[in-house]
């Protein structure tokens, strides 16, 4: 579940759809995971996620600074006669240790976040939570998504088209792009479409906050022959339910939207 633009309703669609389809819910928006606010799963397991950060043995270091020039993220720097390590810039690629001719680099573990597992009604719920202040979340996303079960997993992605989204898509069989009928929604939808098309991932679009049936997203998708999987109306009642942490499928007026959406997804994305 991705969107391009933030705040279009990825979590609204993901949480309700997961329950409707009896699929697992996976919150991969690790910088601000919010799906559990609605699903309120009973947490059964918490795993720490650690990354490797270089540590320099000053007795062995010969100050050749190969490691500093190798690091593409400037996580290592020369300061007078020392080498400084900036943990938060390190991508844990392991390269600095390989280029060091003096065996002066080893790695120490640093915890960057956790993975929580739980159950809500009859579905499995998972989420990654990045520690506040951490800048690099790719390792957490990869760890979260690398051992998913073989059932249907609905992955609630981060917004945008950044590394986290690309990482998430590399574990996805198909994609649902949630958008809204605004210029911003369309602009960022186009970027998300470029991304999924480049990665050759089958996809469809869900339009949220529909006021007029005939809108810019619809026109764009029809023009490009892109499947619209579902539409959710712009409705104050939905905003009220959502802001109170409630699920739409518990309300008879909205349940049908997700039943129809599930059907369309099964027909157009999962049967391919």
């Amino acid at each position, binding site marked *: 579940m991705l969107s391009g633009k933030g705040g279009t309703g990825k979590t609204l669609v993901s949480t309700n759809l997961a329950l409707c389809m009896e699929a697992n819910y996976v919150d991969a928006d690790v910088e601000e995971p919010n799906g559990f606010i609605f699903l309120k799963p009973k947490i059964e397991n918490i795993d720490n996620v650690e990354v490797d950060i270089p540590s320099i043995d000053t007795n062995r270091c010969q100050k050749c600074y190969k490691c*500093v020039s190798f690091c*593409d*993220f*400037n*996580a290592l*720097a*020369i*300061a*007078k006669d*020392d080498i*400084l390590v*900036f943990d938060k*810039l390190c991508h844990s690629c392991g390269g600095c240790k390989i280029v060091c001719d003096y065996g002066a680099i080893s790695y120490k573990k640093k915890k960057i976040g956790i993975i929580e597992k739980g159950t809500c009604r009859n579905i499995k719920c998972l989420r990654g939570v990045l520690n506040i202040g951490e800048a690099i979340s790719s390792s957490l996303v990869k760890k979260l998504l690398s051992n998913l079960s073989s059932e249907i997993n609905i992955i609630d992605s981060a917004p945008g088209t950044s590394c986290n989204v690309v990482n998430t898509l590399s574990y996805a069989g198909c994609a649902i792009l949630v958008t809204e009928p605004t210029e911003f929604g369309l602009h960022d939808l186009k970027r998300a479409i470029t991304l999924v098309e480049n990665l050759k991932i089958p996809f469809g679009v869900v339009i949220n906050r529909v006021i007029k049936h005939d809108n810019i997203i619809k026109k764009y998708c029809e023009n490009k022959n892109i499947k619209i999987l579902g539409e959710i109306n712009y409705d104050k009642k939905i905003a009220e339910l959502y802001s109170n942490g409630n699920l739409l499928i518990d309300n008879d007026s909205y349940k049908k939207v997700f039943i129809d959406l599930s059907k369309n997804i099964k027909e157009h994305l999962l049967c391919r």
Partner: protein
Amino acid sequence: MKIAISSQGKEENSLMDSRFGRCEYFCIYDIEDDGFKVIENTAINSNAGAGIEAANLVLKENIDAIVTGNIGPHANEVLKRSNIKIFTSDVKKISDIINEYKGNKLKEFNN
């Protein structure tokens, strides 16, 4: 005594760049022999940590101080640990900043 000034251009009458890590050039001025030299800031296109890379770049010039508009925490740490003095200034001509430096009129950045 050498100072590096983040700069928008390559001349003494170019304006200072208020950014450190992602400025276009560094003007290096030597007080002793009035020497003036310009280096391109290759850190400008870094994916991350441009301030750190820029700090390492100017350190290679054996400078004693830098003048810029604002400095981030990473670059600040590299420069502080290397005993480099950091001065801040508003955006002005490089030649004016050199004169202010000579007259001890620049504000030292302490953080």
